[in-house]
């Protein structure tokens, strides 16, 4: 875990006078899973959107696989949309609202990127799509349309769609926040499997249990800065700084006693 996949330096993002990100430095190594947590409005999603340039950074540098994205001109970075399209093909994104293409079948959703953007022969693309769909456990729905699937199934297809581009890093923008509670588990299980397979992941989430069990590192954002970061066992269990402590207290205000679980149930979540 030494090789850097993503490096963010001094990232700032402002909407007019409102500065949402106030200088973020963050590095993600190959095979690492980093969870971004923080209150709403702390800039988690904005940070994620800057990484694949759905929003342009106001200031700062982003390196992907060691290469600086954009060109420097007069102390600022200049970005060309055509170059950014190429960058985005190496950055997989999973949205809160799934955003599957409703007019395409599950299989077509997963193959359209490789076929149209990469020029992969359809036969090869279909083979790889099947592989990714199997990975997220939804291969049996390949011929269905998104409207025929549950939210959790749709989100797993969205994950497969992003994986099919074979990205360097996967970004998850609150991937389970729009799901009914009983569907959250299946998506988190699929995400954990990816993490265990060595996928490099940057995950914005409110699922602290997921962060605790899966993340190598947890980053707590507060008002556009990295307020505290470290291994999940530290940040989520023994946070040192007051805002992190407040945040976690809010998340764990109500607790249930742990149910007795059979070993099989414990393994599969």
């Amino acid at each position, binding site marked *: 875990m030494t090789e850097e996949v993503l490096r963010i330096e001094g990232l700032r993002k402002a909407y007019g006078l409102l500065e949402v990100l106030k200088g973020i430095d963050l590095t993600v190594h190959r095979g690492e899973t980093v969870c971004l947590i923080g209150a709403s409005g702390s800039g988690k999603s904005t940070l994620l959107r800057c990484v694949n340039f*759905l929003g342009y950074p106001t200031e700062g540098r982003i390196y992907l696989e060691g290469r600086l994205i954009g060109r420097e001109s007069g102390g600022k970075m200049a970005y060309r949309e055509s170059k950014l*399209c190429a960058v985005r*093909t190496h950055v997989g994104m999973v*949205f809160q609202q799934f*955003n599957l293409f409703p*007019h395409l079948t599950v299989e077509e959703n997963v193959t359209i*990127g490789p076929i149209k*953007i990469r020029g992969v022969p359809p036969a090869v693309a279909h083979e790889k799509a099947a592989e990714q769909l199997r990975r997220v456990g939804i291969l049996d729905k390949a011929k269905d349309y998104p*409207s025929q699937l549950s939210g959790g199934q749709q989100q797993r297809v*969205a994950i497969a769609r992003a994986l099919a581009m074979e990205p360097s890093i996967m970004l998850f923008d609150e991937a389970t926040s729009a799901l009914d509670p009983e569907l959250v588990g299946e998506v988190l299980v699929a995400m954990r499997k990816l993490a265990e397979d060595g996928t490099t992941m940057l995950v914005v989430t409110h699922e602290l249990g997921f962060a605790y069990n899966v993340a190598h590192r947890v980053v707590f954002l507060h008002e556009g800065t990295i307020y505290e970061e470290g291994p999940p066992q530290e940040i989520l269990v023994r946070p040192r700084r007051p805002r992190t402590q407040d945040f976690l207290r809010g998340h764990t205000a109500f607790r249930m006693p742990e149910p007795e679980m059979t070993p099989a149930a414990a393994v599969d979540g």
Partner: protein
Amino acid sequence: MPYDWNFSIVLQYMPQLLWGGLHTVLLSAACIALAVPIGVVLGVIRHQRVRFLAPIAVVYIDFFRTSVALVLICWCYYALPILLGVNLSTFTAVTIAIGLQASAYLAELVRAGLGSISTGQWEAARALGMPGTMRLRYIILPQAARRMIPVFFLLVVEVVKTTTLAGIVTYPEIVYEAFRVSTEVYRPVETFTIAGLICFAFLFVTGRIAMRLERRYAAVER
């Protein structure tokens, strides 16, 4: 005094009336064929607010939407050839007039259709790494087109109706032929009844096709 209906004479002229109906269909098809590409391009320009082109599109759309079809037809047939120094057949002249006007309506329909697709769809396509044209072609336009089907067929019906004005420049469409038949047989009631039925049959079938398409794609949409 009840009217003494007599279709037998008029029915002898049925081929001529059907011939007129066929011309109406052909002219309508040509108008739509001209309107669709122009309308889609203008609609995309309007929706994407393309620099320099968008204001031109607005002027074009406003001009044709506020023009009187009959004036456009006469202008294209009598005035345009003089200005261009070429001969235009009645078919070509009317196709230009009605086709361009329909393209203006269609442009607004396309713009509205594109606007109805959620930003999430654009973002998902963008996040995959699709360039703008690819996003439009494979993701946004196909979805917008499905939603546009009902209104598009409304527009088709309007175009068909408008083509009946082409008789003014002697294009042999259904109403023009009906006029000719009725002056020959002195049976306007029967003649125009049949002409009306031919028009109705055609538009009814068109409407049914629209309903079929709409239902087929509605099943897929969420």
